[in-house]
């Protein structure tokens, strides 16, 4: 049952003095309070120490790819919202990006700016609530989480005003956006963005120097640089392991080359939960910088290019990817000349980041397994698809 590539410590049944003991097998999940959805970890415990761990998923599997292969290109756009339901905007974007590559549609400039604004707001939403959930897994009584939700609420209001929905935004279209933002939206967005750093200061004061958080997270769930690259880890988790790789910088998709921003990454000595937590905290500050530039530079114009309503691309294969808050979100589309994609594949960052869960958890305490899972930042809608 165990993966041969992982290094398992050679635990055996302890038999001393004729006393027969065995390992405690605990099935954590699928309805455990802190497995972030219907995720299960089959954990073998020696006392409190994790000896073996097998992630089990698929409880939320709905064969999103097959569904999408049986409907038109546009119709699977709302389903992408449901992948990573925290970040529907970036999911939309990744899909739109891939489809736009397929038919080569130009996106108007205002739409590009709005896309960047939406994506960075999404990143704020994701990171701020991830940190909240993470501290919740550490055992805080939801206080940081509720502070995070307080701020998230303001951003979700912005989403609702623009797209009509708070989480399942379904806002992006091939060649732009569904509709322009309403009057006064940009000012409200500026207001939210201007006040966000105050909240971050408060948040950092609450969390970043707390001795308990420091000692709980440092040295826990170490992920080496080499393993992170080999295992295809992406996003903040990769940068926490000391690799400077951000698709916004590498691909320069959309108009990210117009903004000045920095990518925080650790020195790669440990790559533990603390690094992953801090990289996200620092990334939020950079997102605010991008948002300020984008909200300052946005001009007037149309938001939807001349995309055809009936979408019938020529046979081709494309792979479009964006830096979603959780990592590289890619869409691999194969068109065969019909209105439906022949092959539609989602490259889910959450699932692939889980590859190293076992390696990080072995030898740690059971309480650490929970926070390591929390620091990976998974959403089961995306893992199971």
């Amino acid at each position: 049952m165990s993966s041969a590539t992982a290094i398992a410590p050679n635990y055996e049944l302890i038999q001393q003095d004729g006393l027969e003991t065995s390992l405690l097998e605990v099935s954590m999940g699928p309805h455990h309070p802190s497995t972030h959805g219907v995720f299960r970890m089959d954990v073998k415990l020696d006392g409190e120490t994790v000896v073996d761990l097998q992630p089990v998923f698929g409880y939320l599997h709905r064969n999103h790819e097959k569904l999408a292969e049986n409907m038109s290109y546009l119709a699977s756009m709302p389903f992408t919202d449901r992948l990573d339901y925290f970040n529907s905007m970036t999911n939309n974007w990744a899909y739109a990006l891939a489809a736009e590559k397929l038919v080569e549609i130009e996106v108007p400039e205002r739409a590009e700016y709005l896309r960047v604004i939406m994506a960075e707001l999404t990143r704020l939403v994701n990171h701020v609530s991830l940190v909240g959930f993470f501290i919740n897994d550490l055992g805080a009584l939801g206080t940081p989480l509720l502070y995070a939700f307080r701020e998230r609420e303001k951003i979700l209001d912005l989403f609702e005003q623009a797209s009509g929905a708070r989480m399942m935004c379904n806002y992006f279209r091939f060649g732009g956006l569904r509709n322009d933002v309403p009057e006064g939206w940009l000012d409200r967005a500026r207001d939210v963005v201007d006040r966000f750093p105050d909240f971050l200061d408060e948040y950092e004061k609450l969390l970043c120097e707390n001795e308990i958080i420091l000692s709980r997270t440092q040295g826990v769930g170490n992920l080496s640089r080499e393993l992170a690259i080999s295992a295809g880890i992406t996003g903040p988790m990769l940068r926490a392991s000391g690799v400077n790789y951000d698709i916004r910088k590498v691909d320069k998709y959309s108009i990210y080359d117009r903004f000045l921003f920095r990518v925080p990454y650790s020195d790669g000595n440990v790559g533990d939960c603390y690094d992953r937590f801090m990289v996200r905290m620092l990334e939020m500050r950079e997102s605010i910088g991008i948002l300020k530039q984008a909200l300052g530079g946005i001009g007037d114009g149309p938001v939807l290019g001349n995309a055809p309503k009936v979408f019938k691309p020529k046979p081709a294969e494309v792979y479009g990817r964006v830096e979603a808050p959780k990592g590289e979100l890619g869409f691999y589309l194969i068109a065969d000349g019909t209105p439906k994609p022949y092959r539609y594949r989602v490259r889910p960052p959450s699932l692939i980041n889980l590859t190293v869960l076992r390696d990080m958890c072995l030898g740690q305490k059971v309480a650490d397994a929970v926070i390591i899972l929390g620091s990976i930042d998974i959403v089961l809608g995306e893992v199971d698809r």
Partner: protein
Amino acid sequence: MSLDLIRDILIATVPLLVIFPTLFAFTTWLERKALARIQNRVGPNKVGVPLTRYGGRFSLFGLGQPLADGIKMLFKENIVPRDADRLFHLLAPILALIPAMLVLCFLPLEFPWTESLLPVQAFLLDGAVIFFFAITGLNTLAIFMAGWASRNKYSLLGGMRAIAQMISYEIPLVLSAVVVVMMVGSLNAAEIANAQADWNWFVFTPWGLAAFVIFFIASLAEINRSPFDLPEAESEIIAGYFTEYSGFKFALFFLGEYIAMFAISGLAVTLFLGGGAGPGVAALPWLSTVWFIAKIFALIAVMIWLRGTLPRLRVDQLMGFAWKFLLPLSILNIIVAGFAWHAQQQASGILKAIIWVACLLILYATAKGLDQLNRPNVRPREYKYAE
């Protein structure tokens, strides 16, 4: 048994049985309300008195909530897992409540009506402090019983954690109380409280302060309060030892936990915070009870505040903290207290101040050193930025 004795027993026990469960109901409301406000929520504000549905102006800040909770608990189904040990599953919550209620008797509470009625104060036991620790120790047994009888792996883990934690933290708890016992020279709770009259609270001495801090931290662990709520760590082991409890059994556990909270806070007040001492006590003796309970609530407020702020420790760090930090510190504190107390007996004002400052410095430096020794590499880090 004479009628008088029965009367005395009733007079002495009934107030405890009435006051503290009432305070428990109030405390659950207070905790929910305070935590809600800490988390920028409103908290219970609907259930009024008497249990009005939409509250409105009769909601009284939701004070009816504990009553509604209690009624809900009473009428909930009592679920026992199929393979559980039914007898011990039933006994555990009762056993958890009894020691907590029992130790309330040793608190030097003076009710105004008992004074005139009782020939002797029933609970003025000479070995009160010892008894207190002895009886609170029983709580561990109840918790492990619950964990074992539930036949649930999470419960078992919670029970095992509880045993390890409570036994470990009892040592610094007792050792920090030893300082006060040394100063007073008595184990009698009332005598300890009386020794602190006229603002001579032990918390105002350096060794008393250190002992109080250790006592408070250890008591948090002893009653499973955040950040030491490992036996019931929600994010790791569901609800720990009471995962499989529902309905009134759960309510008993809950009650036991809060009563234990009152009891240990009451002991902390007795040992370090002057007992019932406070302004106006000399004129109105019953005010001392009010002061005593007010001090208990001050400590409970801090506990709630801590619960709203802090995450939980890990199990090995928890044990390390007890054995490698609190234990050496409390032993050092006893030594420091012994020497300093003798030194300051003959000293004048300035010298006394110097001794006290020196004591504080020694204790703080030791604590800091122990902290460094225990976690040498734990500190905030620097991060790089790529343009």
